[in-house]
Structures are given as structure tokens and as C-alpha cells.
């Protein structure tokens, strides 16, 4: 369905020295620097799969999505979707995909939403009957009815995102690209959008590629994730594999009776641990201890803590994908994927 092989994108950037003088200098004698935004990324996605594409800010997620959707031409490498190469024969290719960029709307600012869909119907050449059916389905999963007569500029962010997702699905695409579809939304709207994505995936076996910073999205929607950092792939596999592979990172939280007493705790010395195996953070009230459960057992850690200080509250958290990813982002967990 989707094949990405050794995909690479470089941008040329002019280095400017600060100030007006620097600007003038670089105008006459520009110094260029090549920036590699995406470096040698390969992955495959099967039909009907929901793939989570994650990574910290600036990792190159959007650049990959833009290459897969035909917006950017790769510097080298190839990608093939439905047997088509996005940046060649663009018009033909984009008929089969839907794209949503959470950060910016693709709709027409002053057009009423209903008219927006009429325009898209014409652009994608959807016939009247399929259009009616499709609108009914989208109305059901995304609840557009309440604001369909309003101009796009008057919609709230949550409404706009639903409208954008509906717009990307009007022509029943085989692949749906969602670049941060839940950004800036409240918990209820996020939940609705996730449900809608699930329904769409189930209804027509639509392949979905989703980038997000919200790991709830990933845990809810995806079986598999591809993680990239600094333009390179660092993990590709099932979420459960990520958990069992790196799930040794756990977290204990406690609230001490007397914050000054905490200085008596010295986990590293007590258990003879290295820097990467344990880390303590506090917000002045709650202390959180992240530790590698392969190196130190939960029981020992609890016993030591409780015998050294008095606590008001204590709990040990489960292996949480968010914690694992945080660890990977901070490069604490070594990857050999």
C-alpha cells in the first residue's frame, strides 16, 4: 500500500549574520548551508492500517508527510502509494488521498461550510448520489449539522478541525494523512475526533497515517508506530513491542511529610546505580523517581524509601508509553531498532 524507501529531503538555507550589516553582506555574498530535514527513512504501511508517526518538534514528521502527499519533492529516495509516485502525476494521485493539517485549515475562510463541500464535490468530481451518502455518513460521525451553514472563519477550533476532516474524506480517499489532528483541542473534542477516525477506518478500511504529540491518540488509535528523531527513524514496530522492550522505565511518585527529609534519600549510593538508571524530579510538593526496573526492584525501592522518610502518599506507575518516549527523546534509552 505505502512503500517508503530511503527517503531524504535537504533544504538549502542561507546563513545570515545578525543585524542589518549581516543582511546586506548575505545579500551580496550569500553563504548557503545544506540542512537535512529527513535522512534515509524507510517504512511500509499495509492497507487498512492506522500508523502513528511520532517524534519531537522539528524531527521531520511534517516534511515526511509533505513528501508523501506530493507537496514536496524528495531530494532522493522514493515513496509509492497505491502504486503511484506522489510528486509525479500529482493531480491523479491526490484524488486518492485525503490530507488534514491541524495547524492550518484547507478550507476557504469566507465560504459557508456547506458551500465549501459543494466546491470540493466539484473539484473531486463526486457524483450527486455518492455525495449525499457521504455527507450523511460524515454528518453522523463528525456532527457537522450544527454549524454547516456558518462561514469557516466563525467556527471554533474543534468545529473547524471536524470540518477539515470531513472535507478530506468527501471523495472517499484510500489513504488519509492527518498531521496533528488533535492539536489545541479540549479532551471531549479530542475524544470525538478519535472516535470519528476509528469509525472511518472501520467503515472503508481507509489507511490512516497520523502524526501527533498526544500519546493518547497513539494509544487509542494505532497498533504500530514509527518514531523519528532529527530526521532519522529510531523505532518502527507495535506499541506493545515498544512497551516490552523499553517498558523497564517506571515511575514512583510520593509526597513527603516533610520536604527537608528527602535529602536523606540517596538512591544512587544505596543501590549503586548509574545516572541513566534513576532520576529524581520534584515540583516542590510531589517527588517523582523514574527508574529502570531491571536494575532495581520495585519492592527494594519502596522499602528503602519508606524506611528512610515519612510520606503522605506514594504510588508506583505502570510502564507508560509517554514515559518511554520521553526517555527516548531525552536519549536516555538506547535504541537498537
Amino acid at each position: 500500500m505505502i512503500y517508503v524507501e530511503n527517503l531524504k529531503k535537504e533544504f538549502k538555507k542561507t546563513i545570515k549574520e545578525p543585524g542589518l550589516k549581516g543582511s546586506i553582506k548575505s545579500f551580496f555574498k550569500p553563504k548557503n548551508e545544506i540542512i537535512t530535514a529527513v535522512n534515509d527513512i524507510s517504512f511500509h504501511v499495509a492497507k487498512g492500517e492506522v500508523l502513528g508517526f511520532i517524534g519531537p518538534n522539528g524531527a521531520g514528521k511534517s516534511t515526511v508527510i509533505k513528501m508523501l502527499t506530493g507537496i514536496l519533492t524528495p531530494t532522493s529516495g522514493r515513496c509509492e502509494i497505491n502504486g503511484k509516485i506522489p510528486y509525479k502525476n500529482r493531480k491523479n494521485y491526490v484524488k486518492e488521498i485525503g490530507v488534514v493539517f491541524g495547524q492550518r485549515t484547507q478550507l476557504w475562510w469566507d465560504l459557508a461550510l456547506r458551500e465549501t463541500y459543494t466546491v470540493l464535490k466539484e473539484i473531486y468530481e463526486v457524483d450527486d448520489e455518492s455525495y449525499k451518502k457521504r455527507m450523511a455518513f460524515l454528518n453522523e460521525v463528525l456532527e457537522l449539522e450544527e454549524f454547516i451553514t456558518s462561514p469557516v472563519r466563525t467556527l471554533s477550533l474543534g468545529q473547524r478541525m471536524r470540518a477539515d476532516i470531513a472535507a478530506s474524506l468527501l471523495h472517499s480517499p484510500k489513504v488519509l494523512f492527518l498531521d496533528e489532528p488533535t492539536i489545541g483541542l479540549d479532551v471531549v473534542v479530542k475524544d470525538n475526533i478519535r472516535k470519528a477516525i476509528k469509525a472511518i477506518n472501520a467503515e472503508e478500511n481507509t489507511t490512516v497515517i497520523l502524526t501527533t504529540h498526544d500519546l493518547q491518540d497513539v494509544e487509542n488509535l494505532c497498533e504500530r508506530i514509527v518514531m523519528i528523531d532529527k530526521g532519522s527513524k529510531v523505532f518502527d514496530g507495535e506499541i506493545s513491542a515498544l512497551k516490552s522492550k523499553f517498558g523497564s522505565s517506571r515511575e514512583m511518585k510520593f509526597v513527603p511529610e516533610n520536604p527537608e527529609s528527602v535529602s536523606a534519600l540517596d538512591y544512587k549510593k544505596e543501590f549503586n546505580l548509574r545516572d541513566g538508571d534513576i532520576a529524581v524530579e520534584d515540583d516542590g510538593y510531589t517527588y517523582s523517581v523514574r527508574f529502570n526496573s531491571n536494575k532495581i526492584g520495585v519492592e527494594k525501592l519502596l522499602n528503602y524509601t519508606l524506611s528512610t522518610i515519612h510520606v503522605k502518599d506514594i504510588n508506583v506507575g505502570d510502564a507508560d508509553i509517554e514515559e518511554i518516549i520521553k526517555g527516548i527523546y531525552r536519549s536516555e534509552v538506547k535504541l537498537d531498532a
Partner: protein
Amino acid sequence: MRILHKIHRTFKLHRIFIKQDLKKLMEYKIDFLTGAIGMLLTQAINIFFLSVIFARIPNLEGYSFEQIIFIYGFALLPKSIDHLFFDNLWAIGYFIIRKGDFDKYLTRPVSTLFAVTVEKFQVDAFGELFVGVLLLGYSVPKITLNISFLNVILFIISIIFATFIYTGVKLITSSIAFWTKRSGSIIYMFYMINEFAKYPTTIYNRALRAVITYIVPFAFTAFFPASYFITGGNPWYNIGGTVVMSVILMAVGIFVWNKGVSAYESAGS
């Protein structure tokens, strides 16, 4: 059938956006009226100065006041029609590319140029169109014109192709933004040369005449075709030149645009 279907679709899309922009016009009445009045004032002052000049001298390089008004009015027609339909090219030069908003046009299964231009119908252009028609209505009965069926056809042809001279110049200059991110000032610089085209080119020196005839050929949007209708002379050069220049500019424009699209770098998000 395929081509008919395409034309039908194009008109349908135009209709939706035109309706939309007319609706907007009703919504922002003050804005529209201020713009239209300002435009009318500018044109009125220009005409006033022309009449002042002609009060002192009976003719300018052999052209009477009414003939000059005819050329002036003629010039406004292609300019306003281009303004009406292809105004969004300015936005390409000023911000659509720089802000990465061009992304959305690339995800649609229609030509990017069509998608960009169809979504704006610049109602401000009605002011220019109105003045242009007014000036033609005033001048035509006062000068000797050979109004034949052929000339009416030639008039329509020259207006259409002259319009695409404007569009071509804007297309080439706005496409530069694909590489430089911003080309608004470049569009402006070349576009403003059209101001010279409203008067007989014979009043300018040779260098300037060469520029507006061969380099940025705005002379073919007004003076040359209009002088054919006034004198009846040299239709091949006066009207044919308009057609040729228009085709060349549009071909170059579309070529540069397509090159630009593949060089497009989007923006971070």
C-alpha cells in the same frame, strides 16, 4: 465530452466564488464604497489633467483629446478584467508562498494555477471597468470609427488577449516567489509600467518605447490595438502583435509557474 465537462466544472466553481465575493461586498459595504470612490477620484483627476493639457494644445502628437480618451478608456478594459479574475496572483507574491499556504492547492486534483485564481473574484475592479466603459461611451461617438462586424470581433479579441498580457506579466513575476519566497514588489514594479500604456507611445523616448513594446509589452494592451480602431491601419501588427505577445507571455508564465511549483519548499509548521 470530456472538455465540455471540464468547462462546465470551471464555470460552476467560478459561479460559487463569484457569488461568495458579491455577498462579501454586501457585507463590507463601506470598504467597497471607499475603494470604489477612491478609484473614481484617481481616474477623474487623470482625465481632468488631460483636459487641462488639451485646453492649451489642440492635439498631442497628432491625437485629439477624444482619441486620447478612447485609448485611455480602452486601456482600462483588459486591466480591469485581469484584475477581476486573476487578482490572487498578488497574494502568491506577497504571502501565500512565504507562509506555506500554497500547500493546500497542491493537495487538490486540479491545476494549481486554476485553484489559486478561481478562489478570488476582485469586485474592486468594477470601478475601473465602469470608468473604462464610460470613457469609451463618451469618445466613440466623437471620433470617426469604422464600426463593422469584423471590427467588433477584432475588438473583443484584442480585449481578451490584452487581458492575458496583464495576467502573463503577473504570472511570471509572482512565480519568482517560489524561489525567493516573496515577490510582491517585483510584481508591483513590472505591473506599474502599464501606466505608460494609457497614452500614445509616440510621446515617449525610444528607450521607454522599446521597453513597453517588447520587454513588458503593455503598449499592446491599449495603444497599438486602439490605434488600429482609430486609424484602421496595420491590423497585423496592432492586433496580431497583441495576440502574439499575449501567447508568449502566458506560455512563459505557465512554464515558470510549473518550474516554481516543483521548487516549492513549503514552510515549517
